[in-house]
């Protein structure tokens, strides 16, 4: 499977995709790159300010600002790690962490769809819309994580260890 198929398959064909990811086709770098790209595109204005800060107040001040910016994806990273630990615990697969990271893709898809929608509407999402997007993203990711768990447990032991 190629990158686009691995990512899209989580949404379009989760059972088949997780079966193949669990058999060793998962690539941890897929999700790492998606998180980095999401951070850069989502926090672009703060990155730009950090560059301005570096010019005016030095690298140390900018580095501190960069650390603060990086915390924007901290909940996502913590959730992925927690999902990986639980998947490892219940499936005993050596690919559990790699596979669990793909369960974050539905959450990303909802956030992207919301960002595009509100960009088209030319206004920022209100608190209710933000909560709804969060809830939908988390629920979909949880559902996909359960599919991943079922598929990993279904795989023969030699495929996962």
């Amino acid at each position, binding site marked *: 499977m190629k990158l*686009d198929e691995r990512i899209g398959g989580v949404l379009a064909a989760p059972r088949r995709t997780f079966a193949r990811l669990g058999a060793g086709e998962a690539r941890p770098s897929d999700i790492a790159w998606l998180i980095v*790209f999401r951070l850069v*595109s989502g926090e672009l204005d703060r990155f730009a300010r950090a560059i301005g800060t570096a*010019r005016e107040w030095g690298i140390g001040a900018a580095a501190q600002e960069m650390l603060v910016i990086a915390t924007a994806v901290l909940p996502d990273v913590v959730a992925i790690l927690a999902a990986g630990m639980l998947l490892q615990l219940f499936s005993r697969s050596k690919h559990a962490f790699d596979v669990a990271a793909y369960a974050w893709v539905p959450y990303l898809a909802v956030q992207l769809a919301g960002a595009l929608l509100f960009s088209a509407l030319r206004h920022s999402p209100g608190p209710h819309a933000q909560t709804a997007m969060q809830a939908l993203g988390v629920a979909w990711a949880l559902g996909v994580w359960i599919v991943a768990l079922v598929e990993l447990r279904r795989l023969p032991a030699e495929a996962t260890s």
Partner: protein
Amino acid sequence: MSEGQPTGAPPTGERPRVNVSRWVGRAILLALFVIFALRVWSLRGQGLLHPATPRGSLAPDVAGPLLVGDRFRLSAERGHPVALVFWAPWCGPCRAELPGVERVAQALKASPHTARVIAVDTEGDRDNALEAAAKLGLTLPIMLDDGRASSAYQVTMIPQTVIIDRDGRIAQLLRGGTSEDALMRAIEKVENP
């Protein structure tokens, strides 16, 4: 959405099936790129590569109620240096830094110093500020910020100290926890340029 579309070449005479997974994946990658491009477009010409608080620029005027006393207005302090220490009661590093800031504020009351230190509570909750001030033994002026001061100085992390010279221009920016000595040195440097 159906599952199980094969990825290999279709048998001869059969219409090629669309690989939905690949197209969904491409749509996600495209959406990421489009959002990135939209952000770049919206940020064009906003001057974000220049910080809101460049050294030597006129410090934005800020005003707000004091925890004890009336109101504070930065523009009324023109003629002597001012150190604005941005903090919040829930912030651990701020609570560690503030006793030292308090000692600096007390030391500055004596001649020949002219500078003043103002703690700007970015949370703006009077009860929480009173509780923290009592626990930390703070007597320096504490301004309750409704968000406008933090926004004007683009405070993205606390503690953060902005030192303003006697002409009302930004002279120094101290990010993160600052030691008592470092704060005093920075203020004295502005008092005696």
